[in-house]
């Protein structure tokens, strides 16, 4: 059974205009019927441009927003119906690491207290047990236990992100949402953090939902990748399969935008032109057709449904 299973997930935000009489004039369909699942010990990469609904998906999983439709199941249980003990158990099992390590750690708290916070909420640990657990997770993420006494501003960006990861791990977490965890870091630090995350997964068996916009990074850490465009999931496949045989034109464009392994390597340029359309007025039919080099008349009328073209490789495009 997958750890997390997302079925037909939808999130629509109402849009109101007018200053005095605010009327609902439309909906932003941030997330439209997406499906995916994450197995235990697996990393699913979620990739897409800004505004495509990645972060909304994360918020829905973290219960920061309520879905308009569809279900999210954790261990087979619908999280929409959780309350009381069940909700606390879920809160304990699913944690998040945000993009900006300078904003996600309270400047007024010591690192030890920041990491201990979820433990204080969920366990009746004594002061000493807390300190011990904090030291354990600090060592897990490659920091010295002595740093528990320090304040966040005494750390570099990479170290802060390690602290954030340590906090996410503290409660024996089963699933960590990594919302662009390395986007704010120097390139030299990124690899270290990514390797650390992989190492932690190997030793602890934790699952990741890795959200990013940089295909190279996402492909490196993920076993499977889901590609999002304007609220739709356009392609999902094994990481190696997706990089070797990208089917959706948008995925192909993303791959080409990533740097090649060798600077002299010849590559075909598929220009995707223009901006991502407004989510307020998404194009009819396939949402990518306004920028797609292979667009056909049918694309602007009929929205493609996701088809499994190879085992574990599904794509939503009229070409297939």
């Amino acid at each position, binding site marked *: 059974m997958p750890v997390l299973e997302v079925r037909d997930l939808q999130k629509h935000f109402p849009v109101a205009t007018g200053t005095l009489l605010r009327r609902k004039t439309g909906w932003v369909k941030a997330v439209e019927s997406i499906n995916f699942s994450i197995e235990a010990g697996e990393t699913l990469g979620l990739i897409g441009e800004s505004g495509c609904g990645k972060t909304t998906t994360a918020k829905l999983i*973290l*219960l*920061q927003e309520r879905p308009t439709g569809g279900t999210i199941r954790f261990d087979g249980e619908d999280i929409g119906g959780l309350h009381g003990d069940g*909700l*606390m158990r879920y*809160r*304990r099992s*699913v*944690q*998040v690491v*945000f993009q*900006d390590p300078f*904003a*996600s*750690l*309270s400047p*007024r*708290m010591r690192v030890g207290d*920041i990491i201990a*916070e*979820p433990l204080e*909420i*969920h366990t009746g640990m004594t002061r000493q047990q807390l300190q011990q657990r904090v030291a354990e997770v600090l060592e897990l993420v490659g920091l010295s236990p002595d740093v528990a006494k320090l304040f966040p501003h005494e750390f570099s960006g990479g170290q802060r992100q390690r602290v954030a990861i340590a*906090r996410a791990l503290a*409660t024996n977490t089963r699933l960590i949402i990594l919302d662009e965890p390395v986007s704010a870091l120097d390139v030299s630090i990124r690899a270290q953090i990514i390797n650390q995350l992989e190492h932690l997964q190997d030793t602890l068996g934790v699952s990741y939902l890795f959200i990013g916009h940089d295909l190279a990074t996402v492909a490196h850490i993920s076993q499977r990748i889901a590609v999002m465009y304007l609220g739709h999931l356009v392609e999902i496949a094994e990481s190696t399969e997706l990089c070797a045989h990208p089917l959706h034109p948008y995925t192909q464009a993303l791959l080409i935008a990533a740097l090649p392994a060798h600077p002299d390597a010849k590559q075909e340029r598929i220009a995707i032109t223009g901006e991502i359309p407004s989510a307020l007025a998404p194009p009819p039919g396939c949402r990518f057709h306004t920028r797609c080099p292979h667009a056909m008349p049918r694309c602007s009328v009929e929205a493609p449904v996701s088809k499994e073209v190879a085992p574990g490789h599904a794509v939503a495009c009229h070409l297939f």
Partner: protein
Amino acid sequence: MAITTAGRGTEARAAGRWRGKLSAARELPLLPIFILVPFAFAALFAELIAPYDPTMPIPGAKFFMPPYWMEGGSPDALLGTDFQSRDILSRLIFGARVSLLVGIMGTVVAGSLGTALGILSGYLGGWVDQVIMRVTDAWLALPALVFAIFLATLLGPSMWNIVTILGLVYWTRYARVIRGEVLSLREREYVKLAEIAGASSLRVIMRHILPNVLNTTMVLASLTIGVVIIAEASLSFLGVGVPPPEPAWGLMLSEARSTLMAGKWWLTVFPGVCILLVVLATQLFGDWMRIRLDPQQRNL
């Protein structure tokens, strides 16, 4: 700085330390400190400093004795006596206690009430926010002093009633300002993280919201003290504040009002100057706090 060469190191370092101390001293609000420290001292040790009992006439002294440097004055009553031949200086010293105590306690009551309501309003949002903010709006529409007089007549005159009343009158601006601050704080990522980790509202408020709004509360408080002291003096002047024979500056002004035209200036000028100085000092101090606690003005 003096870390380059060892030879002139100690000297230069000593000089640097001096300069450091000087600039630290320059940063302190010297004027408010010079004014407030003597008043606070007088308020704390009034029994030891004051030459006479402030509520009892000086035995054998005349009514309306002028200050000692004027004709008819006596060194026995340095600042003269009032209509009951009580010592003005002693009354001023004990009055400082009333003024500062009411000023500080009234501010504490207003600050706690306003901060608590502001946090609840900003953090919980929804109908709680609506109710608290509409009550605040209504409260702000009431003229402060008239409202205070109404409450004072309702509760009856006593110093602690005045503290309660002034707290009830001046909490609104805390609620407004703190609510705004909380609205921005609750969107911070570390607050979101605490919520995602399952923290209760109470826990988020105590651990993340309250520590971050205390700065603002302190600045508002230091600016409110002066206003509260004036309000206390006004209420006492109007006869609904601290009841006689307790010495309060506002009450002294009130008692001297009828004799002001008769040239007995010392009865009004001394308490008036005391109110002026204390309020001025607290306002200057509040301004200094505001600048000190503002990260942008500190060049952080």
